[in-house]
């Protein structure tokens, strides 16, 4: 051990010895009996009151387009639409439990919130997924769910429910669903110092989740804020793009190693043009900007032995998360 290392060791031991732990076992037990997540009633929703039903249908169109296949046989079409309402507490308990499991990286608890045949969108595609559909990971693929949780950990995701509303059955939903809930969620990607606001979409049967999708940018885009002004973390998505631009100028070798070009749909994709347009009806520029966030990026990478093709929001290889975090910190310090 060098002199400096010894000095640091002595310093840390001295500081640690001066710590004064606050022993309060009863407070821990009391704390565990109350809800651990944000009290939804305490936060005023930024959600507009009316959800445009046609855009929900567009979401499913995009899903199909991404999958590159025809209609999904296990999904059912109906036409009923109504105003959003407060979701039942039992369903909110399941959603809160899922969010908490994500935040604590507890894969077993995460899986417990789903029905056995449930699934979710992992923001990309695992090559080994047993689903026929793109961006659809069945929870039965437990090893892949564990790998997805490792990706989540690498980027330091912390999700905070801001508001939730029960929806009537949308145009397309999973077989057996008896409730649909949409939540506005602040997602904080601590490794990237980035925070955005997403629309998380849940389909439930009783209190079991059958389907969860995030970053549903194909519906009312007011729900998806890529650069929320009241965020806690320093960067919105615009800031992440600014870091990428800075990296390419200041550290081109790191840029070549870290970045993974975002790509929209291929030119020969049948139906993709309509899917992109549906992301921002009447605003083709915004639609074109959003499309690469949900389409897969150029390069795959491997996590825990499983090949993954990431969508464009966070396309970087999680094996490089530590280096990317340091680079973003350097960028922030220069700003």
């Amino acid at each position: 051990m060098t002199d400096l290392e010894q000095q640091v060791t002595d310093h840390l031991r001295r500081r640690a010895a001066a710590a004064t732990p606050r022993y309060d076992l009863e407070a821990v037990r009391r704390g565990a009996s109350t809800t651990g997540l944000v009290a939804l009633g305490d936060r005023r929703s930024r959600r507009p009151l009316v959800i445009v039903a046609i855009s929900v249908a567009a979401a499913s169109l995009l899903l199909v387009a991404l999958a590159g296949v025809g209609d999904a046989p296990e999904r059912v079409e109906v036409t009923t639409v109504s105003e959003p309402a407060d979701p039942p507490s039992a369903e909110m308990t399941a959603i809160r439990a899922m969010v908490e499991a994500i935040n604590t990286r507890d894969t077993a608890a995460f899986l417990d919130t789903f029905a056995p045949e449930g699934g979710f969108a992992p923001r990309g595609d695992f090559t080994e997924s047993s689903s026929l559909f793109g961006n659809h990971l069945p929870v039965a693929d437990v090893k892949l769910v564990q790998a997805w949780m490792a990706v989540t950990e690498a980027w330091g995701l912390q999700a905070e429910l801001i508001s939730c509303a029960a929806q009537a059955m949308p145009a397309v939903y999973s077989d057996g669903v008896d409730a649909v809930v949409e939540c506005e969620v602040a997602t904080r990607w601590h490794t990237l110092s980035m925070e955005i606001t997403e629309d998380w979409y849940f389909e439930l049967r009783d209190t079991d989740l059958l389907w969860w999708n995030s970053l549903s940018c194909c519906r009312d885009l007011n729900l998806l804020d890529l650069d929320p002004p009241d965020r806690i973390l320093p960067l919105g998505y615009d800031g992440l793009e600014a870091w990428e631009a800075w990296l390419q100028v200041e550290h081109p070798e790191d840029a070549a190693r870290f970045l993974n070009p975002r790509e929209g749909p291929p030119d020969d994709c049948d139906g993709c043009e309509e899917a992109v347009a549906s992301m921002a009806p009447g605003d083709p520029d915004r639609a074109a900007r959003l499309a690469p966030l949900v389409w897969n990026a150029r390069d795959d990478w491997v996590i825990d032995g499983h090949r993954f093709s990431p969508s464009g929001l966070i396309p970087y290889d999680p094996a490089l998360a530590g280096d990317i975090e340091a680079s973003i910190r350097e960028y922030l310090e220069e700003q």
Partner: protein
Amino acid sequence: MVVGDVKSVEGRADRVSFGEFYRLELDGQVRRAVLLLGSNDLANDVVHEAFVAVYRRWDVLDDPGPYLHIAVLNGCRGIHRQRSRQRRLLPRLVDRAARASDHELIDDLLAELPFNQRAAVVLRFYGGLTTVEIARELGCAPGSVGPWINRALARLRKALR
């Protein structure tokens, strides 16, 4: 696994009660969190929340020790991110050259390190963990740990010169 001077409680079948687990782990976790955050109050808050999370899942956790470690680390990481942003927004009011002691200077420098660098230093030089153990705790590749510690020490060396 040894963290600080407290041994984790491992194995479910013959593990202790939650109260005993709390008593065994509290001091070591708070000490480590103090080193990661530089604040006794914040460290106690983070550790408290981590124990609450463990208590909620006590009946289903096979091995609560690692769960607690990760929960505390994640809590410290979250606090660190929020505070580092606040630090960037504030002008530095203290003249570093006028610091009274190396201890204060080391405290200040540790507070300025990126979280993973600081955590790697604490886990190595306070916790005595190996590179692989640190990587496991921080959820990163083992190859990242050495460079983090080297960068942190280089910064300390330069400042202490």
